[in-house]
């Protein structure tokens, strides 16, 4: 191999946690080869984050500064990162499956005519060929596929967030920072973001919660979700939902947990009237303990549960909540 290059991400005024996660993945890949793990930081003034990237596990940082990179337009990032890849010719490029990365990674690969593995949860190096092998969930999580990169071109892996833990920053680490210069014109921006509308979530963010309580289609309407929200806040957690519940219009899609919704990693995940379709479970496979209340004893959800109650939520839930409340208040 000839080096690993990571697309670093800057979120607001901090280095995105994905960058540390990717550095961990990169260092593991480099463990046998001794390759250098570099992070590219793109932005208006990315230099101030170089130290953070080294503390997060980078051996080297490339900075790419340009006013056109200041407001995160993907087309500008793509063009700049492509040039950074060409100038540094790594053999492996690691990108997070973030809002930016899940599009940028494949587009970079198509542009350069090289292979890309999307949504990887595990990467390893094949000892005999030295090529990267990637594990990725497919068919909505019903199956796992292992893929390797053909030929000898650059290997691009888009890695699912939270598949490894970002390390605690180690400020004793040292590394070189090098500025790369790229040519960027505003005409590369063909699709332009003109506005961002975000809803500030109340209370604990679903993605960060250590306890999540979710409801599904079996709840039958909006009202039971108010009860669930009460339970979630009593437990200091957040509320989620299945896609079926969101599609029904009972809740906004920002509550959706799953393959095309949010990925959650709570210690405790309580589901009520959710069948446990693979596409739902894809979003909570990192939960330490899953609990289900479902009246169908054959429901798929029970296959992933630590504890389950087969019963009607109309009867199970009120008694459950009452007891939880007593336990918490005593």
């Amino acid at each position, binding site marked *: 191999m000839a080096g690993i290059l990571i697309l670093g991400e800057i979120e607001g005024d901090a280095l995105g946690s994905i960058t540390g996660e990717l550095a961990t993945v990169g260092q593991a890949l480099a463990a046998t080869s001794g390759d250098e793990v570099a992070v590219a930081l793109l932005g208006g003034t990315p230099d101030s984050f170089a130290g953070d990237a080294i503390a997060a596990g980078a051996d080297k940082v490339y900075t790419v500064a340009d006013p056109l990179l200041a407001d995160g337009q993907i087309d500008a990032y793509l063009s700049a990162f492509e040039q950074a890849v060409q100038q540094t010719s790594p053999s492996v490029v690691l990108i997070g499956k973030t*809002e930016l990365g899940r*599009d940028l990674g*494949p*587009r970079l*690969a*198509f*542009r350069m005519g090289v*292979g*890309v593995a*999307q949504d990887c949860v595990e990467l390893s190096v094949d000892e005999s060929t030295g090529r990267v*092998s990637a594990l990725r969930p497919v*068919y*909505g999580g*019903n*199956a*796992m*596929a*292992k*893929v*390797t*990169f*053909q030929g000898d071109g650059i290997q691009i892996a888009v890695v699912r967030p939270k598949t490894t833990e970002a390390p605690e920053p180690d400020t004793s680490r040292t590394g070189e920072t090098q500025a790369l210069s790229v040519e960027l014109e505003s005409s590369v921006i*063909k*699709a*332009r*973001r*003109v506005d*961002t*509308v*975000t809803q*500030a*979530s109340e209370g604990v963010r679903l993605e960060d919660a250590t306890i999540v309580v979710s409801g599904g289609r079996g709840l039958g309407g909006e009202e039971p979700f108010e009860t669930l929200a009460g339970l979630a806040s009593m*437990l200091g957690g957040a509320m989620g939902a299945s896609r079926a519940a969101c*599609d029904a219009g009972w809740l906004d*899609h*920002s509550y959706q947990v799953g393959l095309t*919704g*949010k990925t959650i990693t709570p210690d*405790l995940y309580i589901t009520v009237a959710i069948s446990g379709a*693979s596409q739902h479970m894809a979003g909570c496979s990192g939960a330490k303990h899953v609990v*289900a*209340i479902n009246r169908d004893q054959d429901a*798929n959800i029970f*296959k*992933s*549960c*630590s*504890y*389950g*109650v*087969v019963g*009607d939520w109309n009867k*199970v*839930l009120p*008694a459950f909540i*009452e*007891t*939880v409340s007593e*336990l*918490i208040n005593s």
Partner: protein
Amino acid sequence: MALNIIVCAKQVVDPETPASAFRIDPDTKQVVPAQGIPPVVNGFDENAVEAALQIKEASSDATITVLSVGSGFVMDVMKKPLSMGADQLILVDDPAVGNLDAFGTATALAEAIRKIGEYDLILCGRQASDWDNAMVPLGIAEILGLPCITIAQKIEVSDDGVTVHKALSDGYEVVKAELPAVVTITNELGEPRYPTLRGIMTASRKTPTVWDASEVGLSHDQLSHKLDLTELYIPVSDTECEFIEGEDDADSGRLLALKLREARLI
């Protein structure tokens, strides 16, 4: 404004196949469709058809062409977009394009789109529910050199181009591009309409245009895999569920809470 819309739609194994009926042939590394469960048009591609129909209704003069690449098409399945109201169906139907990776698929679709020639808007689903790649539309855009906007929950076309509300995990972005452009559609756009009886009758009278790989000008080289599938397996869960059984449902609920406390989870 005359508008030519191409919707890329893929035939996939029904993703609602119960997990218990989901099978893999480890030798061919392929999913074996469950008996009696026919394939479907990829769900997000139906959302894309719905988006196209809404754009057509809002403009005076639009044509919707549905395009698919593959082999072993089930005609009743692939005609569903026609019965929803799309104008024509083009199938690139060839064993040579039956098992491509995202790279080959994007190449084949891009070549077919070049052959169609006239296009203002290319709509795709946000991802196909078989390989969950969410890559092919990005490839089409790169190959054809077009702007690309993904995960549209709302889309509008006007004289100055396309405006999209791109769904984020907490909210959305407003993104604009000139036409022609590639846009991928998500289920947040709303339920795709059901075919009407009249729609089904009209669709049954339409004959799809079928091209083979050579008619689209696809060479073997262009379609070679960039990724090799070395293993495909069903993950096994080692979790054993402890069922909590009380005297009645309410009692079970109470015992569940006590159990979670005992396990120090609450």
